Every structure is written in C-alpha cells, then in structure tokens.
C-alpha cells in the first residue's frame, strides 16, 4: 500500500536548535496519503502541521527520517515533485505592488505553459469571485487567500498541499472551495490539507491524521473517528431539574460532565441509555435530545490524552 502512496513519510523528525534549547517539532512521524484521497491533517498551533508541510516541500530539512512524494525523494527530486504539486501556505505573502493577474502570470511562467495555466486561473478566479486586476496590497485577507488558492490549483496539480486553506474565507466561498475539493477527488487527484476547522474536515476529508506536539496520535477515516462511544444528552424538564434526579444522574457511572441549569440538564453519556432513562423518569421530561459528538469533541478527547478511550 505504501509503495503506491502519493505521500510516504517514514520516521520523520525535525528538531530545532540543539542541546538544552532544542525543540522537537516532529517526532518520528510516519504517515501515508493514498492517491485520490483528501487527507485532513489536524492539530492545534505548534503541533507540527506546518513543519510537516515545509519538509514535504523541501523548504526545511528533516533531522532524520525520509519523505517521498510520487515515489520521489522530497529533497533530492524536489524540482520534479514541485512540477506536480500546488501549494497554499498558511500565511500567504505575495508581492504587494503587483496585481493578482501579474502574480498569476509570473507563477505560470515559472511553471511553463503560460496560456493554458492562465486560462484555468481565470476560470478559478471567476468561480471564487476574485478580481485579479487589483494589486495584492489592496486585497482583503480573504481575497488574498482566494488568490493563493488560484495559484495553487491553476495548473491542475496531481497533489494539492493546503495549509489552513479556508482561513479568512467567507462561508459562500468556503462552499465553493468544498465543491472544488470534491471535483478534485472525482478526478482522482490527491489533497493534503491541514486545518483546525473540524467541520470542514468532516465535510470534505476521507481520512484524518491528528497531530499533537509533533506526534501523530491517530490516523483514521472520518467515519471511524466519529464512531465513538459517547453521546451528549440534553434533557428539558417541565420544572427545575429535581434534586433527586440530579443526584441520581451524578451517581451514574456512565454519566459525566453533568450540568444542570434551571429546567435544562446536559451530560455526557458513555454506555447504555437505560440507567439514565430510569433516573430521569423521576421528573417530568418535556424534551430529550441526543447529540452525536462533534469532531471537535473527539479532537479535544485526543488532545486531552484520552483519544483511544473516547
């Protein structure tokens, strides 16, 4: 499986500095991204997401381990790899005094095949509602992001590497972005995107890797990741939450994070419903609402160290 992986990272470590002041940004990371999938790379700031991306792009060199893209070494064959990838950095900086069209033309020139690339860039810009005649310095952060997306995608790369792609985009453009990603997948192309927007990952990714402190905590399909054992239960009583009900719920082994506010109670249930239903039956229940855990909950569970138990 790894032989056909688009991205194949083996034992990758990156340590900044040396001696007592060293910082482990990546710790023996091993990860494969398969052809035709949208892979979400999740983690908080400083987890090592951008470091991983920068190693893949040969912008920084690993302390140990290896990374290949399309079977080519990320360092030794970076030029050939870059021909087939599109990249959007997390913090996009471009030439302030140049217009979007000029930037597009320049990047297309370096890539070669200016006419076809520029034509595709114009189509993408139209879909994203981007005015390329404006100078970069006059673009809002959202429009700069759109320009970055156009630059990353305009040559139809086989692999897209996107660092926080929708940061600063308005919801409508985010929707267009999701459509573009789905079209990309339909064409059999691969996307590696880092994000902390979990709903976005949930909506478009096939698999997710969760990174914390440079350590890959889990790699799972989005479906498997959301198939966890706990639920959020909301109970609406006719009157204030009865004291004996609150006491009973607090005493249940399957219930945690119990919170009562007036006639509303919220709790985390890990296990069967029956003990909970029997306990709340002591009061007059108006409404009962069961909520599946969001990816955010799962995310937090992983960050608090209890990922596998969640």
């Amino acid at each position, binding site marked *: 499986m790894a032989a056909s992986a688009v991205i194949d990272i083996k034992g990758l470590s990156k340590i900044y500095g040396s001696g007592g002041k060293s910082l482990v940004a990546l710790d023996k990371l091993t990860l494969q991204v398969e052809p035709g999938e949208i892979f979400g790379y999740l983690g908080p700031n400083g987890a090592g997401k951008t470091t991983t991306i*920068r190693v893949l*792009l*040969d*912008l*920084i*060199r690993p302390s140990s381990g290896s990374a290949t893209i399309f079977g080519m070494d990320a360092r030794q064959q*970076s*030029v*050939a790899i*870059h*021909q087939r*990838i599109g*990249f959007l*950095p997390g*913090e*996009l*900086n*471009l*030439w302030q005094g*140049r217009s979007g069209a000029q930037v597009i033309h*320049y*990047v297309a*020139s*370096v*890539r*070669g095949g200016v006419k076809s690339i520029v034509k595709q860039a114009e189509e993408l810009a139209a879909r994203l509602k981007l005015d390329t005649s404006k100078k970069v310095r006059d673009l809002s952060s959202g429009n700069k992001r759109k320009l970055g997306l156009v*630059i990353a995608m305009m040559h139809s790369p086989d692999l897209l590497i996107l660092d926080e792609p929708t940061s600063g985009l308005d919801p409508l453009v985010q929707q267009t972005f999701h459509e573009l990603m789905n079209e990309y997948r339909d064409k059999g192309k691969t996307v590696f995107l880092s994000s902390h927007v979990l709903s976005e990952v949930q909506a478009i990714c096939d698999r997710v890797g969760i990174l914390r402190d440079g350590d890959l905590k889990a790699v799972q399909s989005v479906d498997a990741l959301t198939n966890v054992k706990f639920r959020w239960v909301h109970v609406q009583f006719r009157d204030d939450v009865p004291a004996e009900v609150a006491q009973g719920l607090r005493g249940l082994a399957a219930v945690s994070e119990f919170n009562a506010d007036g006639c509303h109670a919220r709790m985390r249930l890990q296990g069967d419903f029956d003990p909970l239903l029997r306990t709340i039956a002591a009061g007059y229940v108006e409404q009962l609402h069961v909520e599946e855990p969001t990816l955010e909950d799962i995310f937090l569970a992983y960050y608090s160290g209890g990922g596998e138990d969640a």
Partner: protein
Amino acid sequence: MSGVILGNTLRIAWKQMLYWGLGLGILGAYIIFIASNSDIVQGYADLFDSLPPALMNVLGASGSELFRTTEGWVVTILVSELALFISVYAVMAGLAISANEEQSGILDVVLSLPISRRAFLLERWLAYALLAFGIVLISALLPTLTAIGVGLDADIGIIAASIMAVYPGALVVIAATVLLSTLFRRRIAAIGAVSAFVIGSYMASILGGAASGFLPDLLEALSYFSYVGGESIVSGEYEPTGALGLLAAAGLAFVLSAHLFDRRDIGT
C-alpha cells in the same frame, strides 16, 4: 535555468536601476559642470598642495598632482563618492536577491515552484549584477555626455573608465550581502554585518592610505575600495589584477552562498 526569474526580476527592478543611475549620473554631470571652470580646479590644486598627505588621503587623493589635470580632479572628487553610493545600492540589491523575500515569506511560494534553490539564486544574482551594471553605465554616460556637451578640456575616456571601474566593487558588495544574509538568515543581522563590511572597508582604505607600514598596508589591501582604481587609471598605472581579484572574490562568495542556501532551512 529557464531565465524566467531573471527576466521577471529585471522587469520589476529596471525603474529602480534607472532612478539610481540617473541620480548618480546627475551628480557626475554636476561635477563635470564644475570642472569646466578651470579656476575651481586650480583652486583645489592649490588647496591640496597645502594639505598634509594623510588628510589628503582622507579626502580621497594620494597626492596633489592628481589635481593638476581636470580628469584627475573629476575622478578624485567623483569616484570615491560613486563607489560609496553604489555600495549602498549593492547592499539593497544583495538583500533583494533572497533575504527580503525570505523574511516576508514570499520565498515559500517561489521555492514551492519547480525551480531549484541554486537556479533561483543564480538568476536573481545575475539580474542584480546586470542592474548594478546598468546603474554604473548610466552613471558614466551622463557625465561623459555632459563633458562632451560643455567641451571639457580633459581625457573623457579616463573619466568614463574610472567610473566603470567601480563595478567590480559593487559585485563584491552584492556577493557579500547575499553570503551574509544566507549565513545569518535574519535580514537585520545581515544588514548590520554587511554595513560593517562596507564601512570597515571604506575606513580601512582611508586609514591604510594615510600611513605606511605593515598594518596600514594590510588594511588597504583588505579593503575593496583600494581596488576601485580611479587614481591608477588617471596615472596610467592601472593593473586589471585588482578588478579581477574582486570579480573572483564575488564569484567565490556566490558559490559559497549557493552552497549554504541549498543546504539550510528556508525561513526564519
């Protein structure tokens, strides 16, 4: 090497070259205009006759006989100033090759394109070397045309050649700036180091010329200003080995920069 980076850099920075060239060229033309008044030149010669040699060196001349000819006067007044001004441009150019874009993060986008780091650096280097040549050329052209226009009684070829001889020194400063910004990575640290290099070279040239002995000779030998060549061109003692040495030093610094740039992490 596709030449795209080279062409794009020239397209972006040609106006900068024009403004610098015109600014320095107008300065040169103004000095030529002053030189067309022989009384002023004679007055300078008389003044310099009364100066001690050390002070004369500080003012950019090794002997008052230089002021006996108009071209000698022009070269002495103009070339050391031009060399200093062009060094300032060369520092800016050296920073523009990679340090500015690395600091701002633009280099992340550029180096994610299908171009090697070495090719990128080489094309940028060549572009700024050409732009610096353009500045020196315009700086020589305007005074030359002015000299012809005012009918200056001087060897105009010597004046033009002396201005053009500033160019190898500019390449050394560009190369030193690129090397230092590759080493230090932080733009501000590179600016500090290269400023120390330029000012140190200038001071070494002045102090070295103001006295004789092992240390002053060593200081003078270490300064790239000592190889600019204005005076020796006027006196007919110009040896191209100094300029060739500067070109070799610039080339060596570039190769070292490319090697280091290729090996290190990008970004601060």
